[in-house]
């Protein structure tokens, strides 16, 4: 009897751990499938006065992004967080000029923050050191995303958007924040997608994927052809 009891107790702890682990994995899997299912499905109707915190990922095509921001309602997509790679000096500057021009033209209640994120890999960097820098960049992306927790993510091509979009997706799975991810492929991409675009398209992470040339829409049917932004 004692031997049976001791056997029972010494077996139950690992069993409990395994059961919890399996339950955890199952919940994550269900959430994952649910997020995949809901990606790309429009959200429920909301009142026009609601605001949505917006993350704008900048890189080489800031002028296009600014063109889009000009026609988006500033009092709806606020507060705005601009992120660019640490070695990119020009993109954030252009964004600052844009936000200042909004303030100058009398738009009230401007709320914008500007942040820099470590790059996973610089051009020409050795792959060995890149492993470490990618880990650092991912940790930094995670830290920034936890602080921002955006409801809307806008990106148009730079590599910086990949870790941020993946983290946004994970936040949806884990339930930290539900976000809508919009990707606009740059006007410079006529026949082939950029690497970032290809990844986000294939992995189906973006809720809506916009292309500016009809050739791309024919090649990637889930994309929306919206004509040239510039």
């Amino acid at each position, binding site marked *: 009897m004692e031997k049976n009891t001791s056997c029972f107790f010494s077996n139950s702890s690992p069993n409990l751990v395994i059961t919890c682990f399996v339950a955890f994995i199952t919940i994550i899997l269900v959430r994952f499938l649910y997020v995949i299912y809901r990606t790309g499905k*429009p*959200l*429920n*109707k*909301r009142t*026009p006065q*609601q605001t*949505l915190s917006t993350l704008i990922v900048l890189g080489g*095509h800031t*002028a296009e992004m600014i*063109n*889009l921001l*000009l*026609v*988006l*309602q500033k009092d*709806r997509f606020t507060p705005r967080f601009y992120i660019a790679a640490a070695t990119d000096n*020009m993109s954030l500057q252009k964004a600052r000029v844009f936000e200042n021009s909004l303030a100058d033209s009398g738009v009230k209640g401007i709320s914008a923050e500007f942040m820099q994120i470590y790059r996973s890999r610089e051009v020409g960097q050795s792959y060995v050191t890149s492993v470490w820098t990618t880990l650092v960049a991912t940790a930094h992306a995670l830290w920034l995303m936890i602080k921002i927790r955006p409801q*809307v993510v806008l990106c148009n091509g730079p590599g910086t958007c990949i870790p941020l979009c993946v983290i946004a997706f994970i936040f949806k799975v884990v339930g930290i924040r539900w976000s*809508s991810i*919009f990707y*606009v492929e*740059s*006007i*410079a*991409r*006529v*026949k*082939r997608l*950029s690497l970032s675009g290809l990844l986000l398209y294939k992995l189906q992470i973006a*809720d*809506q994927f*916009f292309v*500016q*040339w009809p050739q791309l829409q024919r090649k990637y049917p889930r994309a*929306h052809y*919206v*004509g*040239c*932004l*510039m």
Partner: protein
Amino acid sequence: MGEARDGVQVKRVVFVTVGTTCFDALVKVADSQEVKDELYRRGYTDLLIQMGRGSYLPTKSTGDDGSLAVDYFTFSSSIADHLRSASLVISHAGSGSIFETLQLGKPLIVVVNEDLMDNHQSELAEELAERKHLYCARPLTLHQTIASMDLNCLVPYSPGDATPVAKLINRFLGFPEES
């Protein structure tokens, strides 16, 4: 050359720009005698080269000896002003430079940098050339393009519109359609 009006010579400036890149091949060929002669023959008076991060330095010239006046600089905070005062723009294939020039309605020759790896830039230049919004050339064929170009054949570029994207985004997020 340049026509004299009331004694004042009309300047026709060719502005060459490489943006923030290093594109010595374009700067070199723009500074070559072949290209300069061709530009002079087509009625241009000045050549201004924005050479960016390149290392090749063009030769300055006042143009007093009946040739093209040549000047250069590396970067400028007001490229737009140079574009505005140009009669012809010769640019690298960066989309920013291309659309800034097209939106100002300036005739444009885009030169594709063949040294770039994975040259997706040429896609845009070729597409816009096919639609007759600009001429597309390679460094070695630039003088031929200048000789044979007919700027009256160029089709003006109508500015793009981001409102379709904004509409789709707002609709997706559940905001009501505005009338």
